[in-house]
């Protein structure tokens, strides 16, 4: 009997090990997720997997459910159906701050810097996840809190210099240009040392030179081992740096492939790439003609 | 249990409930349109009660005294809007709420200057004697409280449901931005609701004075009682506020009948606090709306 048990244990351990190996390349898995706001289904049965170290771009017309998916991943919206897995852990049952502590951070489309804090302080807030000194510790300025505060400051300054903003550390967000605000938001997210970085329209409102710079920065982050999932309207730029492209339309997944495959598909290229992005209704209209 | 006791509970419960509802509705009308919590609401009640008593003691007939007092309370609501809230309309709702606290303190101070520490009282309206009915005793003022509150509430519903201004107010409450785009002046609407809230407070003050004496400092306690009714039922809906008031009145009446006197208020409070903590947005809340 005992032998049988230990044998079962071995088998289980073996399968677990194998599963981990199979899964080791995948960091995030969306399994058939749906979300509905009242009668409106914003995301409808979407599944895809993001591999560790990749840059994945989600593209699609307005209202396709792209931003909703990012919000679902970081727990700001509840799922109606489906599962989200991150590093063998289920995300869709835990609160957003817990998800953040597992290594997922998002930069919002509108950045949402804290306007009551300097840029440096904003980035320092990013270090919250990997520090732990609480009220008593910080209020009494115990050695632990002091040491942490120094580490936080160091980290914040290093992330600010990574995005080239160390000169603006003591300014308030309102005194920065849009692109500087975007970079501050990125620095704040990076200060958390995330494994998975969610970017909502990182190129929005930027000029060509700024876009090129941001692309280089994102590629550098990829080199540093950060997996990136971005949502973007600018399809050309999004395809250029991506390893994987997911196309969404009206809450449904239309395609999930490499940029080359996406570009070579005539249907997708005419309807979802370049210039203006058409919506599903227009696609149906074109197809029926 | 004796039927007459049940009847007694019911009658005093409805009576107290009407008072709570009247106190709470003042919050509702202002909050629904402006999203400001008017913490000076109780001062309107105080002014309504004190003025009615003052005019009555000067020999003015009681109904006329009450009408004048209600008008003055409404005017005071208008002053609060024009002098304090309107100039600060671009500031946050939190700031505007605290502005009403400042106004309340000022009014309370002025009331103390004018009336001193003296408590004022009134006889029952038209000196209605106590009524004995089915073994229960109904205090003569009770029908007045219930009747006038019901009249005011009916008036409010008719106003909101059937007049152009009322519909405009509802539009403001549902969607201020949308209301603005179709040409409704949100500023004017918010003036109306402050006047309305003032008058509501005045009515409550006039009708309760024969039951509980009033003095310059009853404002904040009245504010809190109204808030309680509004929160228990859900401040976003008039029906909620009325229901909250009724639940509160009933609980207090039953507690008063069944428990030693020193415990009755606290018993009612604890029940209601429990309701309110389990259902944080009130019994009749539109889901999650704050």
């Amino acid at each position: 009997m005992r032998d049988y048990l230990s044998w079962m244990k071995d088998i289980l351990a073996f399968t677990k090990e194998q599963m981990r190996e199979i899964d080791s390349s995948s960091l995030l898995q969306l399994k058939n997720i749906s979300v509905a706001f009242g009668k409106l289904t914003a995301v409808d049965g979407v599944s895809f997997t993001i591999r560790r170290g990749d840059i994945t771009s989600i593209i699609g017309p307005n209202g396709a459910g792209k931003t909703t998916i990012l919000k679902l991943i970081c727990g700001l919206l509840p799922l109606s159906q489906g599962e989200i897995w991150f590093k063998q852990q289920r995300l869709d049952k835990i609160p957003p701050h817990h998800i953040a502590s597992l290594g997922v951070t998002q930069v919002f489309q509108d950045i949402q810097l804290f306007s009551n804090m300097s840029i440096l302080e904003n980035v320092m807030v990013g270090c919250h996840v990997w520090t732990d000194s609480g009220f008593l510790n910080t209020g009494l300025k115990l050695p632990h809190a002091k040491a942490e505060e120094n580490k936080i400051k160091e980290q914040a300054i290093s992330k600010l210099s990574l995005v080239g903003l160390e000169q603006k550390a003591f300014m308030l967000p309102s005194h920065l240009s849009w692109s500087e605000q975007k970079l501050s938001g990125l620095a704040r997210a990076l200060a958390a040392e995330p494994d998975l970085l969610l970017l909502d329209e990182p190129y929005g409102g930027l000029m060509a030179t700024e876009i090129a710079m941001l692309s280089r920065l994102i590629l550098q982050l990829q080199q540093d081992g950060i997996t990136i999932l971005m949502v973007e309207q600018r399809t050309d730029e999004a395809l250029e740096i991506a390893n994987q492209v997911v196309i969404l339309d009206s809450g449904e997944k239309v395609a999930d492939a490499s940029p080359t495959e996406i570009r070579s598909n005539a249907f997708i290229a005419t309807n979802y790439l370049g210039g203006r992005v058409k919506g599903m209704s227009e696609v149906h209209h074109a197809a029926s003609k | 249990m004796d039927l007459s006791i049940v009847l007694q509970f019911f009658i005093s419960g409805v009576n107290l409930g009407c008072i709570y509802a009247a106190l709470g509705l003042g919050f509702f009308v202002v909050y629904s349109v402006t999203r400001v919590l008017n913490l000076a609401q109780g001062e309107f009640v105080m002014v309504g009660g004190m003025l009615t008593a003052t005019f009555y003691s000067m020999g003015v007939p009681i109904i006329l005294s009450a009408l004048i007092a209600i008008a003055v309370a409404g005017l005071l609501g208008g002053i609060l809007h024009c002098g304090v809230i309107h100039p600060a309309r671009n500031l946050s709702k939190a700031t505007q709420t605290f502005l009403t606290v400042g106004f309340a303190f000022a009014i309370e101070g002025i009331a103390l200057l004018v009336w001193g520490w003296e408590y004022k009282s009134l006889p029952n309206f038209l000196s209605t004697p106590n009524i004995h009915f089915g073994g229960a005793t109904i205090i003569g003022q009770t029908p007045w409280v219930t009747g006038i509150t019901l009249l005011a509430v009916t008036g409010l519903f008719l106003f909101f449901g059937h007049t152009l201004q009322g519909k405009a107010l509802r539009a403001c409450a549902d969607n201020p931005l949308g209301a603005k785009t179709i040409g409704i002046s949100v500023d004017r609407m918010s003036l109306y609701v402050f006047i309305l809230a003032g008058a509501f407070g005045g009515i409550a003050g006039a009708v309760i004075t024969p039951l509980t004496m009033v003095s310059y400092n009853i404002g904040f306690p009245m504010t809190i009682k109204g808030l309680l009714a509004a929160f228990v039922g859900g401040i976003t809906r008039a029906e909620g506020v009325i229901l909250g008031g009724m639940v509160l009145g009933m609980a207090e009446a039953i507690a008063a009948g069944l428990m030693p006197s020193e415990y009755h208020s606290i018993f009612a409070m604890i029940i209601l606090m429990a309701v309110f903590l389990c259902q944080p947005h009130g019994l009749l809340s539109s889901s999650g709306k704050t």
Partner: protein
Amino acid sequence: MNKTVELRRTKAEYLILALVVVLFLSIPLFAGPYHLAIIMDIGIYAIITMGLILLMGQAGQLSLGQAVFFGLGAYSSAILTTQHHFAPWLALLLAIIITGSIAAGIGRAVLRLKGIIVSGVTLVLNLIFSYLVLSLINLTGGANGIVNIPHLSPVKLIPNSLFDYYFLWIVAFLLLAFSLNLVNSRTGRALRTMNILSGGGEETAQVLGINVMKYKVQVFTLGAVYASIAGSIYAHHLGSIEPDIFGAHLSLLVAIMAIVGGMASPWGAFLGAALLMGLTELLGKFASVVVSGPTGAYELIAYGIILMAVLRFLPQGLIPLFQKLPPQSRHSK
């Protein structure tokens, strides 16, 4: 370079702190008992207000319930010493635990609500507390309150009032130092992220890993603990307490002190408390003599007008007037 500016500023802050401490310790040498009593009142109010400033100014949670926790502290201390014969200092510590636990429970329930609704609900707490105190006569003495509360001073080397004075102000300054540390730390920053009144955002805070609800409840509890400490000192100092003191008026007055002083910094508590108490003294002394009228009337009017004026014209309170550069330009330099 900028970094040094920032550091020098906090150093200056601590220098001022040291100077003020010395000043306050030497006051009893030249002030009479009457003025000492006023300065003690200021200290009591300042401690309660400081707790509120952490809650409102940092975390942006509008609370109008500080008097409840002040009362809980005072009654806990009074009941523990008079009925259970605890030593006063032990009673003070137990009062902190009692008040803190109650506040944590209330906070967990109330802080699920948003914005100004929280202010309304916490205001209601005042009424519930006063009903409780009036009802539980065996415990609280009802409307008569509690008398013969022992003094804090363990051995009688100096007069009780002098001991209380020193004890109060040392506690006040320790709490100030604690608050200043807190504001300039990981905790303070986390609190400011949820301050929707001034540029915070709860969603962003959560995405950055901050447990918003936990921090709200903790800071609410901390604010209550400040009030509880003030309440205990108050009860032991006066030797008797009555329920009238711990009402909605006190909660509102404390909120006015916080707003008038300025909520961005814990210093605002001292400024607000000193200003309003000073004003009360002045009006109490002169107004009823110069222009007749019942005492208290002019104070109420003045509180109201000052609150409205500060909210309209000095939304940051008086604190920025005492800083060399307003916070905005300080950061942009």
